[in-house]
């Protein structure tokens, strides 16, 4: 005869004890629980999308590869925030600054699970054109505020849950400046995303980002 068993201890998961559980019989205070919980919540960040300026692996890597002399560059991004970094003579050290009110939505916007390119004041649904590996490359009509005679390209990639963009300002096809803004989950990463690398490769194949060693950039971004 076939029989079925139900574990009583598991069955009681559906029981609520309002009788024998004496609240307050432990020394643990609610405020202590709150302290631990809220610290952890802040530390982990919200699981939902969170926008930050990444450590800009691409910018640092590009700088290192170009072997620039000591210099200081500050420029205003398409989103209106100030960015800057310092490079030593070896091209290995830098600092990166950004304002805290970065407006990601000036470039890309997530709405109801769809991603929209919003640069130049437009709103184009690019959700199906990009993924973790496939970038969407857009040539901006608006020039960076403090740069003349330059072309600005935005490389967007990822998914509605984790997306971002890199921006390249090119002079006659050669790299001039770069920065990246990304969305991240609880764990940030320093490595470049596949869509970023593929975006660089695509720009190179079109005759832009001239003289760039992408392999070296990738290595730098992982090891820095």
């Amino acid at each position, binding site marked *: 005869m076939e029989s079925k068993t*139900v574990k009583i201890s*598991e*069955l009681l998961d559906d029981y*609520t*004890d309002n009788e024998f*559980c004496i609240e307050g019989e432990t020394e643990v205070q*609610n405020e202590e629980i709150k302290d*631990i919980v809220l610290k*952890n919540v802040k530390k982990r960040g919200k699981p939902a999308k969170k926008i930050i300026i990444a450590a800009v692996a691409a910018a640092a890597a590009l700088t290192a590869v170009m072997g620039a002399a000591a210099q200081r560059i500050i420029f205003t991004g398409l989103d209106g925030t100030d960015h800057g970094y310092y490079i030593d003579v070896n091209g290995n050290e830098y600092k990166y600054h950004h304002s805290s009110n970065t407006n990601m939505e000036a470039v890309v916007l997530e709405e109801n699970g769809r991603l929209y390119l919003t640069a130049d004041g437009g709103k184009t649904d690019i959700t199906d054109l990009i993924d973790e590996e496939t970038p969407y490359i857009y040539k901006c009509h608006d020039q960076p505020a403090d740069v003349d005679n330059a072309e600005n390209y935005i490389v967007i990639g990822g998914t509605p849950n984790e997306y971002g963009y890199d921006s390249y300002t090119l002079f006659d096809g050669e790299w001039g400046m770069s920065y990246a803004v990304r969305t991240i989950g609880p764990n940030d990463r320093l490595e470049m995303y596949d869509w970023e690398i593929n975006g660089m490769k695509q720009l190179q194949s079109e005759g832009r980002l001239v003289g760039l060693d992408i392999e070296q950039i990738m290595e730098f971004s992982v090891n820095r």
Partner: protein
Amino acid sequence: MTDGDIVNGLKKGKTKALEQLIDRYGAYVSSVISRILRGRNEDCRELSADVFLAVWENREKLRAENLKGYLGAAARNKAFNKLRNEREELPLEEDMIIFDEGEQPCEAVERKETALLVNRAVNGLEPITKELFLRHYYYGQSVAEAADALGLSLSAAKTRLCRGRQTLKEILLKEGYDYGEQNCENK
């Protein structure tokens, strides 16, 4: 402020709602854990926080119905896992109800929500048997420990537990408990 209000706040990502949840149920959760761990305030504090962190992480799936029961189950789960990780055995006496083929739930009875039915079934036990039952199966106390707390001999406690299991099964079947939909093991 209802449980529904708190759950809605949590779903919107408001940490204030999380604080309100802890204000309301923190003492309950820590008491359940404390009972199972027999004190151990440091572990109790840490596991209680873990329960509410898990609620926060899974807040999108949270439901306002039976929120206290849900937190109690989560607290038991954390505490029992802690004991298991410490290789502490949880020798529960005959931790099962066996439903034989043909012992179907009463067809005439409308199916009830499992939580409501289980609560009603446990509350239908004779008071001393109910306390013994909960001390042992809900809080993981050994039969000897629970018997001692209730002033019963070991054999009398075991007899009561056996009778309690049978009564619980009868009430569950009478009330329309559909064990086929639960996590059952075929034997």
